[in-house]
């Protein structure tokens, strides 16, 4: 597999960030990624869309993405420019949806504990290594099974099965 390196500024959140906060139902009358991106994280952080830059990374505590099955949530995050999400744990449907649409996600409690908001970090997806450039520290995450990594790299499940 070729190396996949992601780099960006951290936007840090707490536990149980749910799909209603990531993309509220009032915007679910569209499936357009660019429109969904405009409202990403609106109910938890109304400045998120203004602050986020291409490549930035969300870091959160437990159970990220809990709630609905709405795939609009990871789609909105990806289309807002976020290159990856790191959390202690992910809610299971959000986990599936992220893999299926090709949004890289990683689990690492040591990284979540140490990384602060606005740190610049770099992720080596193949090795599951997270490097905090600001703090000059390195953390490990559990790499996903190879087939999941391949799905992410293909850009999602459907591109992978084709």
């Amino acid at each position, binding site marked *: 597999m070729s190396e996949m390196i992601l780099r960006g500024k951290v936007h840090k959140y707490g536990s149980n960030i749910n799909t*209603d906060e990531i993309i509220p139902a009032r915007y679910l009358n569209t499936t357009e990624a660019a429109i969904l991106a405009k409202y990403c994280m609106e109910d938890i952080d109304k400045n998120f869309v203004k602050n986020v830059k291409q490549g930035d990374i969300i870091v959160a505590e437990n159970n990220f993405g*809990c709630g609905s*099955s709405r795939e609009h949530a990871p789609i909105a995050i990806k289309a807002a420019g976020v290159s990856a999400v790191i959390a202690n*744990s992910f809610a299971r449907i959000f986990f*599936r949806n992220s893999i299926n649409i090709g949004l890289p996600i990683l689990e690492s409690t040591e990284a979540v504990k140490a990384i602060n908001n606005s740190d610049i970090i770099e992720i080596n997806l193949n090795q599951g290594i997270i490097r905090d450039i600001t703090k000059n520290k390195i953390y490990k995450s559990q790499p996903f099974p190879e087939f999941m990594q391949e799905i992410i790299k293909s850009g999602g499940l459907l591109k992978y099965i084709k």
Partner: protein
Amino acid sequence: MGSTITEKILAEHCGKKVVKAGEFVEPKVDIVLSNDVTAPLAIKEFRKIGTKKIFNRNRLVLVMDHFTPNKDILSAEHIKFVREFAKEQKIKHYYEGGNVGVEHVLLPEKGIIASGEVIIGADSHTCTYGALGAFSTGVGSTDVAAAMATGKIWLKVPNSIKFILKGKLGKWVSGKDIILYIIGLIGVDGALYNSMEFTGPLCKKLTMANRFTIANMAIEAGGKSGIFIPDEITEEYMAERRQKNYKFYTSDKDAKYIKTIEIDCSKILPQVSMPFLPSNTKAVKNIKKTYIDQVVIGSCTNGRIEDLRIAASIIKRGKKINSNIRTIIIPATPEVYSQALNEGLLKIFTDAGAIISAPTCGPCLGGHMGILASGEKCVSTTNRNFVGRMGHIKSQLFLASPAVAAASSIKGYIATPDMI
């Protein structure tokens, strides 16, 4: 080493003798479900695969229940898009308009779901069907698109947590109180990735309505599925409704559980989940007096005829809904609506000053038909009370049973039925 009911159902659908927790498998699915929020995305993705026909036109169920009756132009366009797809693919189970109901009440009622099946749905509350002893789990739109083409789904066989329910339920205590209590006990990620298997002597006495309510909220504890071991009560329900053969599975005595939790349900009092997590559960009698603005009785959690009967019995006793409260009653399906009409329940509600809505998910997800303003509080029989779930981010949602919701609508504050 024996197997759990979940492992057995998945093994059978993989054509294997045994599968074990932790294994990645690709079972055949019996029913694939999607709704007006998730189907437009699923259909778009399905088109990208290039397969012309779906794997089986009788096994995809499309229910237009979230933003119907169409709440705005964009939603109407979405539904038109799904309707055209349903016609093109000659989908047998397409529900919209006069035959639509809240999906997780509608599918079992129509006999579309059978015990022993594997069901996936692009709706998180798909776990409801575990009440019938099926393996049933929520997925996303892309999963549904792939399953529409292949009739299969990739999954990791879940570990199981065994909940042994014991004791006798107190007056006005229902399945809703049991599941809110459990979520309060283990937290919103207490069953993350796991199957919640409900068993124990009390289960044999729980009605199907209560079992559906309990399995429905497994996702609120992070569960992949909730499941009951089928018995005579399941048999009776299936015999009346079935459209196809069904199969009862059970867990082996030496099956492996990662945890076993015993709950004496005699101790459970009417519960309420305080904002902003379903796990912020308290006994109603232990909270301070909380005045409210709205009551919602309905949804895939509590919109069944049994729920409306309980609510009507309390509202009848209280005679009038408090003048400060908007009370919205949503029979979950046309069958529930018509039963409530025949039993005189709708008259009790309207005479008391409640609003009767057409079957819809509507307010539960802050879609339409009962949105809250800033600062407003609502007691709802629905399943989630996250920030902004039913409207403004400064509104507050309190989850409770139909009995507590009905009592609160009379009192004007969060109340127990024995106060009426």
